[in-house]
C-alpha cells in the first residue's frame, strides 16, 4: 500500500508560560501525500504556525511537542536526534515564513545565505554552490541574479526577498515545502505573483506543499485539500470544493461569510463575533461554542467528534449529528 509522505498523528504542542500552559495545538492528525498541496486555514492563534514549527521542530522555548507522532516516510521525527533533525530540515522539508523583511539575516549577503543552505545538505564545493544559487535565483524569477547574490537583504524589496526565501527553501529539492503565510506581509499584486510562482514551481519540481494562511481566497484554487483549524483543533477538512461550497462546520461557514466573494451577491460581509478562546484555559465542549450562532446545549459540554460527511469531507460539529439524527428519525417515521 502506498504510504503517505507525511502523517501527523494526534499532535499536541504547548507553551509553558507564567500564567499556565498555552495549549496551542490539541491533538491534530492529518496526512499529506507526495506532490499534493494541503492548505491549513484559521484565524490568528488557531495553531497553524505552531503546527508548521512542530513539523520542522523549530519551536522556541518554552514551546514543546507534548504528544503524538509526526511520521515522515514512516519514521517518527519527534524521536529524531538533533543531528538527524538537522539533516531533515532544509533537505527533506523546507519552510518559508510570513515576513520576508525580517527572515533574512541582515548582515550577510543573499549569496552567502543561499550558499550556506546549499552546502549544508549537498557536497557541492563553494563554486558549485554559487552556481546552484544562481540557478535557483533564475528559477524563482529574480532579475539580474548575479548582482543580487552580492547584495544585502535590506537592498531588496519585500517581494524579491520572498522569492529569495523560496529559492533558499527549494535549493536542496525538499519533498515538502511549508509556506507559513507566505503572502500576508506583501502587497496584493505581489501576492498573486508569489502564489503563481509557487504553483509553477510545484508543477515543475513536484514537491508537496503545506500552505498555511488565514486567507481562504489565497488557497482556493491551489490546494488539493483544506484543513480548517480553530483553537488548536481541526474542525473541518475536505477538498477545496467541498469546503467552499458545502461547509459543514459553523466556524467554516463564518469564515466564508467574512470574505468578499465575486460569485455571490452578498450585500455585506458578516464578521464572526467575539474573540478567540483563551488557550491557557480551554473550555469544555466545542471551543467555538461561545461564538457560534447555532450553539446547542451539548456544544457547551461535549467535544464533537469528527464525522464523515462524504468520502472527501469530514467535520466536527454537533449540527451534523443533529441532522443525521433528524433524518434517521424522519426515516423511521416514514
Amino acid at each position, binding site marked *: 500500500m502506498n504510504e503517505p509522505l507525511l502523517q501527523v498523528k494526534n499532535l499536541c504542542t504547548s507553551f509553558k508560560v507564567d500564567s499556565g500552559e498555552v495549549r496551542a495545538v490539541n491533538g491534530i492528525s492529518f496526512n499529506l501525500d507526495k506532490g499534493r498541496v494541503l492548505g491549513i486555514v484559521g484565524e490568528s492563534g488557531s495553531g497553524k504556525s505552531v503546527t508548521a514549527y512542530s513539523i*520542522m521542530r523549530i519551536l522556541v522555548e518554552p514551546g514543546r511537542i507534548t504528544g503524538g507522532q509526526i511520521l515522515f516516510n514512516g519514521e517518527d521525527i519527534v524521536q529524531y536526534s538533533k543531528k538527524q533533525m538537522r539533516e531533515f530540515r532544509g533537505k527533506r522539508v523546507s519552510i518559508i515564513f510570513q515576513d520576508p523583511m525580517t527572515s*533574512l539575516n541582515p548582515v550577510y549577503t543573499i549569496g552567502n545565505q543561499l550558499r550556506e*543552505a546549499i552546502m549544508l545538505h549537498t557536497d557541492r564545493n563553494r563554486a558549485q554552490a554559487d552556481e546552484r544559487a544562481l540557478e535557483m535565483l533564475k528559477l524563482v524569477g529574480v532579475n539580474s541574479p548575479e548582482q543580487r547574490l552580492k547584495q544585502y537583504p535590506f537592498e531588496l524589496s519585500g517581494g524579491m526577498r520572498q522569492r529569495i526565501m523560496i529559492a533558499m527553501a527549494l535549493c536542496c529539492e525538499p519533498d515538502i515545502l511549508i509556506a507559513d503565510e507566505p503572502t500576508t506581509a506583501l502587497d496584493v499584486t505581489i501576492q498573486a505573483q508569489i502564489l503563481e510562482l509557487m504553483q509553477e514551481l510545484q508543477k515543475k519540481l513536484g514537491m508537496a506543499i503545506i500552505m498555511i494562511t488565514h486567507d481562504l481566497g489565497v488557497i482556493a484554487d491551489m490546494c488539493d485539500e483544506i484543513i480548517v483549524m480553530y483553537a488548536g483543533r481541526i474542525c473541518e477538512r475536505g477538498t477545496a470544493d467541498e469546503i467552499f461550497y458545502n461547509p459543514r462546520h459553523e466556524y467554516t461557514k463564518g469564515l466564508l461569510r467574512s470574505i468578499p466573494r465575486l460569485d455571490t451577491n452578498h450585500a455585506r460581509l458578516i464578521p464572526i463575533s467575539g474573540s478567540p478562546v483563551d488557550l491557557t484555559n480551554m473550555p469544555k465542549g466545542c471551543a467555538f461554542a461561545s461564538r457560534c450562532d447555532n450553539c446547542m446545549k451539548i456544544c457547551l459540554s461535549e467535544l464533537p467528534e469528527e464525522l464523515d460527511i462524504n468520502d472527501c469531507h469530514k467535520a466536527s460539529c454537533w449540527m451534523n449529528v443533529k441532522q443525521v439524527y433528524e433524518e434517521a428519525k424522519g426515516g423511521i417515521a416514514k
Partner: protein
Amino acid sequence: MLKYTIKRVLLAIVTVFIISAVTFFAMNAIPGGPFSKEKAPDPAVQAALEARFNLDKPVGQQYLIYLKNLAHGDFGISLKTGRDISQIIREKFSVSAKLGGMAAACAIVLGLVLGSTAALCRNRWPDRLIIFLTTLFVSVPSFILATILLLVFALQLKWVGVFSTENPNYVLPVISLMLYPMSYITRLTKSSMLDVLGQDYIRTARAKGVREGFVIFKHALRNALIPVVTYVGPMIAGILTGSMVIETVFTIGGLGTEFVRSINNQDYPMIMATTIFLAVLMVIATLISDLVYKLIDPKITFD
C-alpha cells in the same frame, strides 16, 4: 557613510575645542593666580613671572596662546615639579596605556563570552550565576574592590605579587580595572543576544538545518555585536578614569596617579593638561567606535 563620517569628525573637533575652552576658563576662574598663592615674593619678581607665563595679558589672548602651544604639543610646566608636562604625560601614559589596553581586551573577550553564555543558558544556573556576579561587580566602587583584592590576594594569601616598578605584576590591577566594563559588556551582550535570538532570521537559519553552534556564532553573534560596539568608546573613557583609582591604589606610576596627585597638590597646569589630553583620547575612542558601528551594520550605512 562619508557624510556621516564628516559630521562625526566635525562634532569631535567641536567637542575638543569646547573641552579645552571649558578647562582653560574654568581654571582661570579660580581666584588667585598661581604666584599670588604662596607667600608673595617681590612684586617685581611676580610681575616678571607673570610676564614669563603671559599672565599679564587678557584671558582671551592667554587662551589663544595656550591653544597655539597645545598644537605644538606644549602643555606648559608643572607648578610642583617644574618639569615639562608633555614629557611627564609621554612618560606616564605608556604605563596607563598598557594597563588600560590589557583591561579593555580582557573586558571585551570575557564580557562577550559570559554574555553569550548567559543568553544561551537563559534562566538556568549559569545565567543566574553570571548575572548575579556581574550585578555585584557593578555595585562595588572600584577603589573598594581594588583594595580588597590587594589585601586578600597579595597581602594575605600572597598568591600574586604586589605591583612595583622592578617587578610589575599587572594581574590584580588589570582584574580590578576590568571587572566593571566586563560586567557591563556581559549584561549588554546578554540582552542583545536574547533580542537577536528571537529574530525571524534565526528561525530561518534553524529551519535551513544549520548546526546550533553556527546559528549562534555565525547568525546571532554578529548581529548581537552591533550594539556592543557602541559601548567600546564609553568603555575606553571609563577605563581611563578608572585607571586613576586603580593606579593610586596599587601605586602604579601612571597618568592616573599623576592626575590625582595634581588635584591634591592643586597643580593647575597639570590638571588642565591631563584633562585635555584624556578628554581628547576619549573623544577619539568614541568617534572610532561610532564609525566602526556604522561599518559593521550594513542596514545603517544607507539610512
